[in-house]
């Protein structure tokens, strides 16, 4: 009976040795994903951000109807 108790106790103690850390390690702030291509990184914009920005800003003005027609006084 005593041998059984000792074996059981040892088995219970040793079972703890098989445990491993299961929580995810938190890394503050660092993006973990894939690198993205920048909008202007293409032949269309000659890899120049200012060319891309100019094109987008010109297009933004299409939303402004006041550049198409002046409001009546």
């Amino acid at each position, binding site marked *: 009976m005593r041998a059984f108790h000792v074996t059981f106790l040892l088995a219970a103690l040793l079972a703890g040795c098989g445990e491993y850390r299961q929580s*995810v390690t*938190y*890394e503050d*702030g*660092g*993006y*973990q*994903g*894939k*690198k*993205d*291509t*920048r*909008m202007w*990184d*293409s032949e*269309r*914009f000659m890899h120049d*951000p200012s060319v*891309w*920005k100019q*094109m*987008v*800003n010109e*297009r*933004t*003005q*299409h*939303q*402004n*109807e*006041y550049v198409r027609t002046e*409001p009546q006084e």
Partner: protein
Amino acid sequence: MARMKFICDVERCIECNACVTACKNEHEVPWGINRRRVITVNDGQMGEKSVSVACMHCTDAPCMAVCPVNCFYKTEDGVVLHDKDICIGCGYCSYACPFDAPQFPNSAGKAPGESATDFFVARGKMDKCTYCAGGPEENGSEAEFEKYGRNRLAEGKLPLCAEMCSTKALLAGDAPVIVAIHEHRIEQRGYGDTRWGWDMAYGRAENEGADKT
């Protein structure tokens, strides 16, 4: 560098839902997911107002702060995007977002013939407005379209929701440019400024000197 933002002019929005339809069609967004929606307050009463809401691409985005796997990133032009290969669908971003922008697909909301995406957890990977800027895949590639939708920004275009807006209530573009358009409208209306929370979203960055008007 540009700082891409949306402005919804509540004085102009007529709740036509063209922005919602344009978004769903352009990106082939699956059933059950609305990257953009129109919210109406005081519906049918005097003072009824509608506002088109999607991810506002926050300057200090709370979704980025709470994400346990850091799948969010901000592009150089201020668009908040995420990597779906990293997302675990925990939903923290959904709780953190004041605009309820993060959307979670489930098999019940899938169109016939589409594969279920809830294999990982019940909620599936998060989906949200990308400002028509795709995601971390090759610009204009099929993989990018399948995961994130079309990348119009890489084509020199603006988000389709804004470009399709019939009353031009929804403006999209670089913050100073759309602010100038909106301020000109306010001057033309002649009944004063109806904006709130303006400086936080569209004011100049701190190092440029904040606009205290």
